[in-house]
């Protein structure tokens, strides 16, 4: 007899997939960015996840500047998705903190606990440059760019 999965099962499956993705992406971002604020980590994780999984990549590693603006424009129209995924980001962060993969540094910023984790998502040139650019930007500027462009 064919049985279709119940809604709660689908929701659980969806949640575990989303958590796994964030569980991979956050350490990868911190691996490049070394020490990042929660705000930057939230924005970067979402944008990079969006680039990886939605296929929305208008720019590649050849881009020269304004990486954040280009990346947020790429994710344009996904604000509701961004709102929804803050939950998965928070859940993944708690798991990462509890499993001591990520820890708080000075000034409440986040960094990897110990060295590079064994399994890590390999980021492209664009993503690496985007993270490095964000490291030098103000948190409020990063947030404004998301509000304006996503």
């Amino acid at each position: 007899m064919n049985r279709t999965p119940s809604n709660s099962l689908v929701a659980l499956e969806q949640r575990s997939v989303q958590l796994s993705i964030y569980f991979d992406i956050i350490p990868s971002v911190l691996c490049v960015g070394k020490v990042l604020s929660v705000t930057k980590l939230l924005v970067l994780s979402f944008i990079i996840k969006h680039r990886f999984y939605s296929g929305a990549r208008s720019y590649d590693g050849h881009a020269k500047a304004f990486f954040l603006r280009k990346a947020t424009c790429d994710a344009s129209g996904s604000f509701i998705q961004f709102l929804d995924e803050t939950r998965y980001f928070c859940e993944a962060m708690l798991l990462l903190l509890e499993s001591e993969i990520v820890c708080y540094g000075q000034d409440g910023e986040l960094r990897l606990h110990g060295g590079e984790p064994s399994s890590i998502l390999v980021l492209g040139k664009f993503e690496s440059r985007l993270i490095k650019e964000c490291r030098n930007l103000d948190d409020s500027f990063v947030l404004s760019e998301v509000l304006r462009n996503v």
Partner: protein
Amino acid sequence: MFELRTLTLNSFDGRSYPYHFERGINYIEGLNNTGKTAFVQFIDFMLGHDDKGIAERPWYCGTLKSAELALADDCRLLELYRSLDGVDYEVCFNGVATDVRTLADYVSEVNSILCQNQRSLMDFWQYVGEELTYRTFTLFSFLEEDHVGQLNCFFGKLHEVRYRVKERQLFDYLFARDVSRILALEKDAKRLTEEKEELAIKAEKNKALSKRIDDELATLGVHMSLEEDDIARIEEVLSSFDITSPERLGGSRGISESTFAAATLADQIRALEAMLSERDMEDAENTKRQRLLARLEELIDEKPEYNELVGPTHSLLEDLEESTSMRDAQVQKEVLERKKKQLNRLRKDLKASESVLNPVDADERFRVATLLSDHIKEYKSCDVRERFEGIQRELTDVRKELRKLRMQIDETKIDTISAAITRRYKAACESSAFVRDDFELDGFGVRYVRNGNLIQPYFHQDDVPINYYTGSRARHALLQLSGYLAFLEMLRTRTDCPSLPLLVIDNISAPFDAENVRGIGDVLRSFYSEDENAEIQVFLFENKAPSELGVNPSVYVKLECEGKTGFNPFYCSGGYGEDE
């Protein structure tokens, strides 16, 4: 209050070995590599610590099968049984065994027995937002050797992530100024939220209804709307209408005048719409900011530990609102809102005017009038706008007060803890030269600092307290011991916290020289000189004799003695290397 009475170790070949404990100081002496640290960790294991690899440790593997821990007070006996492989558990209370299959059940069962007041526990859970058990309170009961001498974040276990993530809410609760008020507000907020959700459904239904009423009014040519006019006023106007007479419905305006007015209105609408579309971009940005703020608040409300994580982002978003550009946008938004209302009004007027220009026939008007009358009745029966707005305002006020109260620390409690730490530390003056030196400083004292769980010595200079920084690890260890004891005293008096009245300390004497080490005995003597503390058990694991520390223990155990080489009596070869 429960106290540890017996720890019985069971071997694979059916032998048993008991360790007996009593009230007061239980002194366990052992040379290096005899399993003192293993013993400390084993007590924690029996109290429910999730130590998955314990069965594989060389000093247990193949020799130690399980253990039993008996806790008792004057009239109750709690027996805990746990096998090292994590398969068998048993909790037996006053001779009645409970079916326990997992570690979570084991902890939960012990917690319900240790809890002195079920109602206070529920309040505590409600305050912290999760079901914290006595396990969390073991952070006040264990000082491991690695953390001896730390004054910053002085509770050793707080260095473990599993405890650190709970630190904020637990210490907020312990030092909250007005817990009962906060709990009452929490209940209010919950009730108001539920009520608001119910009303929101009704309000949504009414919103659809009001749109239909406005349309019907416009069809009849009545220049009124629910947004602008009172429902009673609308009813009054309608009651004087003659439905069959189209001339009266259109008011006093003539047809050409109405045509002109309609054209003017259309122009105004176009102009307003153009204005609106220009503002749309900024509007959208602000809406997004508010939605993100609301989302973060929702997450924090759901799980308070997210506050530490996304709190800075939340504050940042709030600051964005305060920035100049946003304030400007706020003013513009207000103007825009007014213009939108004006636009709405104009559109309705236009529709009403159109119905005058192209009047519907009498039958249709009669039908619309009948429907309108029904809709107005239905609208009146469930008009919740005012109540909804009232609840919304009340909820905002409750949340504001809650946030404010949660930020407040009860300074009296901090002062009591600080005074207790100073008192204990001062007791070591008898034997310790550095403590005597400290108290010779003008106005010397010790203060507990809530942020960072810091023990801060200070002295006074020209009546101004100056923080006193010293590098001596032995001094830090004595201050830390005083800190632990002060917290145990505080927890002893609180029936709302499911804590165990015990303190297990591993090798605290390590940083001391032969003279100053007696300060430990002085501090403990001063602690036990107060009758109320008699029930609290202190377990000292040392490689020195008790007399060297100036301690007079109730129970003295030597780990290496006839027939055994260390903590595990069934383990004969090798040592306890990994942990020592």
